[in-house]
């Protein structure tokens, strides 16, 4: 349900203030959303992403620049492969969709590839929705939407997403297509990369489902997406249907769990701003005013991770060694607390976590002593 207009405007204004004057908003993409959903407890990431703050710039301004970057070789190759897959009005791509997902349907002899250009993300979203509606109503034909734009409400603010392609089947159902440049070698690909692609596709499916719910015919969004990769060592496309029901369920749940950005924004002190133009101290204070939930996994997904890691280490948090570490230490959350409890200086011996810790420390000391002898 759309928010009452005044409230929506107020939030947008508040978020613009957080971003700082004259700083353009950075759009959330599916990759960022998938990463955000992987750490739903992180208020810092939620508000920064929600407000469209450029976290890479912010991290540099904080003195812990992010290490993300894309090699131009990878970029060139990715684009070249995508162009090859979509060549000839998407003939090859549609053939793969037909072969892998919808054999019962009429083979795609000719397909519509509507023009989706419009001004601004809102315009492109509206245009995409229009074309989706039209393609669904014209049953019996294949339609390929090349780089459509979808909107998804994330914790109270809209995120604009751009899937590689969406295909409308003759029966009116929709399929998300992900084109990736890692190889499908002898029919299998790197599971970590496939997992990332599936999580990303799940976000698109969720966004498409919102669109579908608004249409009268309420078309079906297929939960098997098409992953297109280069085959073996060639650049010929090979495709595989990937079931993303699980990723969809997880992402939907995590997105619902995301603390509402409004609530976080309300907690912030008046005048908080994340503009990279601000002096370092002020900026650090602003960032520190929102709690983070750092874990080592953040290093590969969040631009701000090095900053948060430094803070987490300074605070002696055991989570900086990994989330599982925290699980076995009971209520002890800092390095010094744990070590003091292990040495027998603090802690309640009847607490099972403390007792186990002391036992572990004694066994370790005994073993090391035995080895020295």
């Amino acid at each position, binding site marked *: 349900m759309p928010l009452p207009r005044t409230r929506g405007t107020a939030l947008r204004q508040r978020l613009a203030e957080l971003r700082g004057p004259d700083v353009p908003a950075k759009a959330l993409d599916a990759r960022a959303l998938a990463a955000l959903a992987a750490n739903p407890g992180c208020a810092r990431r939620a508000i920064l992403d929600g407000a469209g703050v450029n976290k890479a710039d912010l991290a540099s301004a904080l003195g812990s620049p992010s290490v993300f*970057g894309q090699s131009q070789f990878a970029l060139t190759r990715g684009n070249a492969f995508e162009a090859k897959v979509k060549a000839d009005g998407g003939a090859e791509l549609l053939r793969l969709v037909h072969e892998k997902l919808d054999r019962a349907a009429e083979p795609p002899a000719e397909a519509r590839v509507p023009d989706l250009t419009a001004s601004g993300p809102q315009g492109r979203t509206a245009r995409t929705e229009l074309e989706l509606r039209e393609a669904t109503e014209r049953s019996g034909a294949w339609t390929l939407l090349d780089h459509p734009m979808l909107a998804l409400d994330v914790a109270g603010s809209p995120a604009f997403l751009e899937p590689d392609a969406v295909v409308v089947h003759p029966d009116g159902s929709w399929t998300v297509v992900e084109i990736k440049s890692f190889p499908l070698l002898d029919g299998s690909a790197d599971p970590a990369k496939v997992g990332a692609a599936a999580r990303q596709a799940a976000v698109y499916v969720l966004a498409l489902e919102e669109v579908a719910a608004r249409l009268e015919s309420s078309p079906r969004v297929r939960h098997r997406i098409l992953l297109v990769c280069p085959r*073996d*060592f060639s650049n010929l496309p090979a495709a595989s249907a990937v079931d993303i029901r699980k990723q969809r369920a997880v992402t939907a749940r995590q997105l619902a769990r995301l603390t509402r950005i409004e609530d976080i924004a309300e907690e912030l002190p008046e005048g908080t701003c994340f503009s990279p133009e601000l002096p370092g101290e002020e900026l650090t204070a602003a960032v520190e005013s929102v709690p983070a939930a750092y874990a080592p996994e953040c*290093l590969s997904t969040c631009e701000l991770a090095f900053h948060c890691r430094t803070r987490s*280490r300074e605070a002696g948090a055991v989570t900086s060694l990994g989330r599982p570490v925290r699980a*076995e230490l009971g209520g002890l959350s800092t390095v010094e607390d744990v070590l003091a409890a292990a040495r027998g200086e603090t802690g309640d011996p009847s607490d099972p976590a403390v007792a186990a*810790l002391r036992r572990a420390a004694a066994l370790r000391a*005994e*073993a090391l002593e035995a080895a020295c002898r």
Partner: protein
Amino acid sequence: MSLISTLARLEAVSTGRAQPAATVRHRHLSGRPLVFVPLITAGEAGAPLGALVGTDPDAPRLLAVPQPRDRDLRFAFLAELADVVLPYVDAHAEVVEAAERTETDPETGKRVKVEVDLCADAPQLIVPSRAGIDLVRLLGRSTRFRRTAEQDPEAPYPAPPRVPLLGRWLTHFGERARVPGSSLLLAMTDVLGRHWATGQSTLEDQHLGALLAWIDPPEGASGAEAALRAELERDERGQLTCPPAGPATDPAFDNKLLAPAIERYDRARTALASAEDGLQADDRFGVLTAAEREIRDLVLSRTRPTWDAVWRGLDLLRELPEGAHVEERWTRDRWSFTGHRDRVLAGEPPQPRRDDAVTAANKLATREREQARLEAQEALDDPLVMAGRRLSGEAFAGEVTDVVMAYSEGKRPSPRPLVTIRTDDRPHLGERTKVYRSLGGKPQSAEFVADEEDGAYVVLRVLDKMGRGKEPEPGSVPEKGDRVCFTLFEHEQRGGAKLPDPEETPWTHGGPPGEATLETADPVTEEDLL
């Protein structure tokens, strides 16, 4: 992660230095390992950019591909790699010793001992990180089906002569690396991480430079500071001073240094091709050579720090005494190496793209068995590992407080002494649970009888390894005052039921594979990656 290793990590955080996670070395290290530090081009399926390779820490061989998209240059790289790897492998294949193996006699069906050759030593390949192991496997896959001009004169892009053989060996190394406890192909970060606990997460331990910084920080710096520097410090050109161990390169390196250098190389090559006379060609050839040298220097600058780090890691590991069972596991690696050598010599085709059902099941069974073996042997070799098993209730140690002689019932009574042990450990013992201790390298079994005083005393009945007489052989029964350590897990692994031959594969598993079909080479297209 067990609580003991968590504790070691926390101690590392507070002391600023890595703490021991093992008291002995659990992996075999060859006296002359072949170190391989590869780099690949981003976005391509493992298209090599270059590598340092060799057995001498002071004289690595530099291989570089000035234009990674060029098939001929890639083949030249692989041929050069084959020139280093294959002589190294062959040197180990030649020296053999006699060994015995039990085989089923094809005529009588009986198990008989046959004398066979076993290579006296096996080659050992060391890469910086786990991604390096994946690349070895990928290179193996991409080259083992290639056809040389000799094999197939019609092949559109024939591979240099020894490249398919290189692919078969790399595949073997890559497959063997999946067997727990094997040492034919090791990733330095894995081995170091096995022996030391750092004050950072296991994810961050994947960075070789940071890992070494924790284990052996430079004078006057803490491990944490040195690791941070290794991870992030950049020079005035924006390049990491400790480049990633690869095979992927840093995007900043790709975009700022490598891409312009490759572009200059391409331009020089085009210019040379369009030279109009000899003099002009000479000049332009000079430019091309300079452009190529520039790329070689770039590759060297990114791989040399990693190369040195790998050798430093080897030095650190060599300081640890070798675990007692390491030699035995290395012998298994030697068997695996000898077996593959024999298959190559017998002219068998390269390893198939996909295993048949029986081979796949055998591989899985081997990995499971070796995992159990590795866990048992590491615990027996290393008190620190045993401490972890004791903490989790899978073993217990203590002092013998009482020994009562008892005998089995039956015609010929055998000794079944009852041994009482005082222990602080809390093992998960049930009625008649079997426990084992190491007696002169052989497992002696006992069974749990009772516990007293809430588990502080454990009474066991010793079952075997006491000789044939009525009285146990001296030294075969623990005595009062002895320190003993019993485990609830078995020390030696029994192989599972034998699987049928591939020809007998049941229909439930796809049936017999049928006639062996020769795997064809990958079809080549204009824009292949490897």
